[in-house]
Each structure stands twice: as structure tokens, then as C-alpha cells.
């Protein structure tokens, strides 16, 4: 599945602005962006990719059980990530490393999860409302919708003030669209007119199953059946992702109801480090999408605007430093204390958990005593 006439594109693969009837509505949002903001878009894409490559290497060296690459999807994530406002809540799936970076998550926390040290890793309220990853496909779309229902109940949306009205962004993928929970989330969102943006990254492959098996129609058409406006964008165009997300999210927050964006992108890497995409997709398809890589495209655009060689050189060095720092800190991570598995199973005391924690502590201590006696 590739771009069609319906696909919103603001930046061509050659790195030039697309002037069209469709883009005219969105280009004013781009014109408002400062040079510093555009640099920041590029900076996060480049640093995230360096982080991603470093994490993949760490996995291959046995430092993580699993890695989930985001390579190729940086534009979809960075554009939507910078379109959010401070007060927004984000419910990611498990591949939104660039959005995590934007919202201030120390991405070492993602490494900690995939290294087997935690099931979560950070506190949303301390990280600009970026909630923890969800691994069951589509489950988080219902949590996001419930949260957005709560925002509406609190009367924190729909006043028309984009600087204070709150909204929710939920990320999910093409595979997840087949999950019942995603359909139920769209039903509830439409029923309660939630301040919510459904952001679908269609990366074309649900592990080995192509999007054609998930849907006979383009996925951006699906929300219309629920009464929710949807649009398809070029997901490798960071400007389209930013502008469409900004527009749709501000519509949602100001009381116009939920919105849906399908970002057409491509998972250049494997589904996870356990996957082997050479078994199910062709070299030609991969080459087609590598040629549409979002990062070189945006670099061409910035250079066309006169960005200096020094900026790109410094960024390359910064990304390498970032990756090296992740490597050093990953290697320094310890193992959680044994008792941690019992902590926080419940919020309130629970006799079974308390008994088992105490039993295990005694059991482990018994070995220590025996050792001392010898």
C-alpha cells in the first residue's frame, strides 16, 4: 500500500513543499514554525534513530531480551509528538520511542522494560503525561477513550481555548485495527464525543501479515463508519504529520469530537529483534520505502532553507553521544530486588502477598544462615 491522491503530503520525497488544494489548508500551520522548531523536529528524528540502532545492538549483544525498532516511523511520531500541547495525555502502544523522547521520558526506561527489569518504567504525570507502553494490541485505545471521557466529565475540554483545553492522543498500528477493542474504542469515543485523536501508524506489516489481510479498504476510511472524521497522511512527511495532528487535535480538544489520522509509513526494521522480515517481504519493497526514508527527506528540506553543514555535523555528533550514553547506562543497570515482585500487586495490604513475600525472604535467608554456619 502506498500513497494515493487521498494521501496528504506537505513535503515531497525530494524535500520540497507540496502546493496543492489539499495542502493549502495545512501549510499556514507549517509557516508558523520557527527555524528552531524545525531544527528540533530533525534533531529528535536523528537522535531517536541513533538510540534505536544502539538499542538493537545492545539486544544482539545479550543486553536486552527484546528490542522493538521504530526505524522509518520517526516522522509520523515526531510530527504528531510536536503537535501535542503540554496539557495533553498520550497513550502509546510500544514503538513510540520518538514521542517518548519529545515528552521527556528518559528512554533508558524503555531499555529497562525490554531488559526485563520492569513492566512499566515511568510515571506519566512526571513525563508530560506520556503513559507507559501497552503490549496487548489495541487495549490502550479503550484506556485512552475512558481517560478522554474523564476529561470531558471534568469540563476540561470544549471551551474553545486551545491553550487550556485538554485532549488525548492514542497510538496504535495497522494490526491493532483488527482488534475488537479498537472498534469498541471508536464506538465509545463517538458516543461520548471524546476529546481524542486516534493516531494510526500504518507501517504495512503486523509481524508477517500484510495490511491487506487486515482491511480491504484504506484504514483512514474505517472511522467514517463510526461517525469520526479520518484522514490519510504521508507518514514519512514530518510536516504533514505535524500539521494534520495539530489541526485534528485542536478540533478534538475544542469540543468537535474525536478525530482519526492514518499515517502511511513503513517499518524499515523488523517487528522486533525476534523477527526475520526476509521471510515475508521482498527486497524491492524494502528498497522502495528506504528511498522514502523520512530523515534524508527532511534534511533536504532544511538544507533547501539554508541550514548549515555545521548543524548537521553537530547533530551527528550529538546522536552518537546520546547512543554512547545509553550504552554506558544500560551496562550499569542492576537487577531488581527479589521482593519487588510482591510490591504493588495491590494498592492495599493483601494477606496472600504478604505471606508469600515473608516466606520467600525467610527461604532465602535460610541459605545465608547455612552458609554462615559452615
Amino acid at each position: 500500500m502506498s500513497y494515493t491522491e487521498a494521501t496528504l503530503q506537505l513535503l515531497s520525497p525530494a524535500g520540497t513543499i507540496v502546493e496543492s488544494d489539499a495542502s493549502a489548508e495545512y501549510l499556514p500551520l507549517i509557516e508558523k514554525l520557527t527555524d528552531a522548531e524545525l531544527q528540533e523536529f530533525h534533531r529528535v528524528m536523528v537522535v531517536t534513530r541513533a538510540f534505536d540502532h544502539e538499542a538493537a545492538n545492545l539486544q544482539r549483544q545479550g543486553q536486552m531480551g527484546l528490542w522493538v525498532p521504530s526505524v522509518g516511523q520517526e516522522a509520523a511520531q515526531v510530527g504528531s509528538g510536536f503537535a501535542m500541547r503540554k496539557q495533553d495525555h498520550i497513550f502509546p502502544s510500544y514503538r513510540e520511542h520518538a514521542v517518548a523522547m519529545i515528552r521527556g521520558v528518559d528512554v533508558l526506561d524503555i531499555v529497562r522494560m525490554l531488559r526485563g527489569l520492569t513492566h512499566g518504567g515511568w510515571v506519566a504525570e512526571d513525563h508530560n503525561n506520556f503513559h507507559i507502553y501497552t503490549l496487548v494490541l489495541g487495549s490502550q485505545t479503550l484506556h485512552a477513550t475512558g481517560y478522554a471521557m474523564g476529561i470531558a466529565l471534568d469540563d476540561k475540554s470544549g471551551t474553545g481555548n486551545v491553550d487550556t483545553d485538554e485532549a488525548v492522543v492514542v497510538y496504535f498500528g495497522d494490526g491493532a485495527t483488527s482488534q475488537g477493542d479498537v472498534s469498541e474504542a471508536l464506538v465509545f469515543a463517538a458516543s461520548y464525543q471524546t476529546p481524542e485523536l486516534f493516531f494510526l501508524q500504518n507501517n504495512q506489516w503486523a509481524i508477517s501479515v500484510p495490511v491487506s489481510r487486515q482491511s480491504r479498504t484504506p484504514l483512514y476510511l474505517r472511522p467514517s463508519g463510526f461517525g469520526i472524521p479520518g484522514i490519510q497522511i504521508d507518514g514519512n512527511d514530518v510536516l504533514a504529520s505535524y500539521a494534520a495532528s495539530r489541526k485534528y487535535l485542536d478540533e478534538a480538544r475544542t469540543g468537535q469530537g474525536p478525530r482519526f489520522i492514518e499515517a502511511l509509513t513503513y517499518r524499515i526494521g523488523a517487528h522486533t529483534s525476534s523477527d526475520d522480515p526476509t521471510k515475508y517481504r521482498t527486497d524491492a519493497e524494502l528498497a522502495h520505502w528506504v528511498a522514502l526514508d523520512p530523515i534524508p527527506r527532511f534534511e533536504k528540506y532544511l538544507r533547501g532553507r539554508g541550514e548549515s553543514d555545521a548543524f548537521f555535523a553537530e547533530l551527528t555528533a550529538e546522536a552518537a553521544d546520546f547512543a554512547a550514553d545509553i550504552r554506558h547506562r544500560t551496562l550499569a543497570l542492576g537487577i531488581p530486588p527479589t521482593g519487588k515482585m510482591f510490591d504493588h500487586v495491590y494498592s492495599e495490604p493483601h494477606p496472600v502477598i504478604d505471606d508469600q513475600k515473608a516466606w520467600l525472604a525467610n527461604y532465602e535467608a535460610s541459605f545465608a544462615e547455612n552458609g554462615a554456619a559452615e
Partner: protein
Amino acid sequence: MPMAKALNAGLRKAMQDDAKVLLLGEDIGPLGGVFRITEGLQAEFGDRRVMDTPLAESGIVGTAIGLAMRGYRPVCEIQFDGFVYPAFDQITSQLAKMTNRHEGTMPMPVVIRIPYGGHIGAVEHHQESPEAYFAHTAGLRSVSPSTPNDAYWMIQEAIQSNDPVVFFEPKSRYWPKGEVDLTASSAPLHSTRVVREGTEVTLLGHGAMVAVLLQAAEIAAQEGTSVEVLDLRSISPIDYGPILDSVRKTGRLVLSQEAPGFVSVGSEIAATVTERAFYSLEAPVLRVAGFDTPFPPAKLETIYLPDADRVLEAVDRSLAY
């Protein structure tokens, strides 16, 4: 008042006491729920706090999780026991594990009310007792009242809990009347209670079984056998103190439940009592349960469901050891 009215009063009180308490479910608004448990509450509190939802159980529980993240205390109504399974992932993989996944920073004060059990002559999926699935899952609490008074207090205590509580309402006990003390709760949420004292055999059950056990105890008394009856009340965690005290006194324990016996709440209690009161037991712990079949068509339910005669048969077997 009957348990149905007591639950209605308990929900009303909880909503009056805390503006964050919300009700979500199918047909719970103008209709008041198919069992009328929420009758009048939408008129009193409005449709923002008493929400008729789309017909999607996973959607109900999944959005309740999001509302709880936002600081609300949602109370979900699942219309019938057999309709809870579409929500199974959201209950067991999401709701139950959310606090743990968040390392204690995310309480999950969600109550899931499930009318459960047989004796109402209904069609398939409307008479089941699925409590073992939820008792097996770490992170959930499960309770079941047997009387109107317990229903009134336990629903309020469940709503006050910062952990998710699956609240099993024995639908065959919705309409018999009982005294309700509106001034004070008589027992903590997670406590087993002695409801009839005796010396020779202990009977233990929950929900609608408690009335059957009391009936069996009365018949046994007429036949000269002194039977103690315990109301489990809390399915998870189980309050073993009163159970072990009773077994140490009588030396004999008969467990009863409507649910199938295989890998059930009764199995768990039998194993634990055997571990913790082995030298007090004069007979093996016996279980009287639903058969390990699908719940049968309604005309056979009186054969499937344990009644006083089947309980007394087990009492006789226990005493024969």
C-alpha cells in the same frame, strides 16, 4: 428490604459521599438495569454519572480503567455472569495488572458488579458462577454478599477500595427481604463470618449457597446433628481465621458452591485447610459443587445446583469417617 434495594441504597450512598463515583453499564439508566439495581439513580445523579453505555463489555471495563486513571471511581455493571467474558482481557490483563505495571503509582478503584448464579430458570449464559477465573488472577479482589445488610455495606466498601473488586451479586437472592442496619457495617469487606454456631460439622459457602447451607443446618439439627455455618463473603482474599477456628472445633468441613468443582474456590480452600489444620481434621474436606458440565438447560438446574439434600449427603459422609 430486599438485596436489590439494599444494593441500590448502597450505590446511592456511595455516589452521595463521593462525586468521583460513576456508574457504567448496559441499560442502567432509565430502565434501572435489567434487575433494577440502579433504578432511579440516573434521575437523581444525571446521565454524566450514571452512563448507559454501548453494548460492549470490553469497552465498559476498558473505559472504566481510563476513567480510574483520571481519578474517577467507576462501578461497572455486567448484565449477566456469562456476558463478562468479552471483557476478560481488560479485567485480567489490564485492570488487574495496572497497579503492578505502574509500580504502585496508579491505584485502580474499579468495581465490576456481576449478577451471578442459578435458580432463576433463565437461558444459557444467564446462570453461571465464574468467580474462580477472577480469584485466580493476582491484582483482583472478589467478594459476594449473601444478605441485604452485607450487600448494602459491601458495595460501599468495594467502591472505597483502591484495588479493583469483582463484586458477585447472587441474583437468586435479589428479592428475599432482610434487615439492613443503615448505621454501621458489621464486618470488614474481606472477612468470613460465622452465621450459625454448631459443634459437629462446618459448612462453608458464599452468595446464594449460604441460604441453602442454613436450610441444611436446620434439617440436620432436627435430626440431632449440630452444624456450624460460615458465610465466606470474600472469595479473594479468603479470610482463613474463622474457617480454621471452626474446623479445629468440629474437625469436619463441607464446602459448597454453585460453580463447578474442578479448579474452583472450593478446591483452593480444601487444599489450604488440609495444609493448615491437618491434625484437627477427622474427615477429608468434602466439596458439594455444580457438576463439571456447562450449566444445563433451566429445567435441569435443580439437579445441577447443590441443594440441602446434597449438602446433607456430604455431611453424612463426613460424619461416617
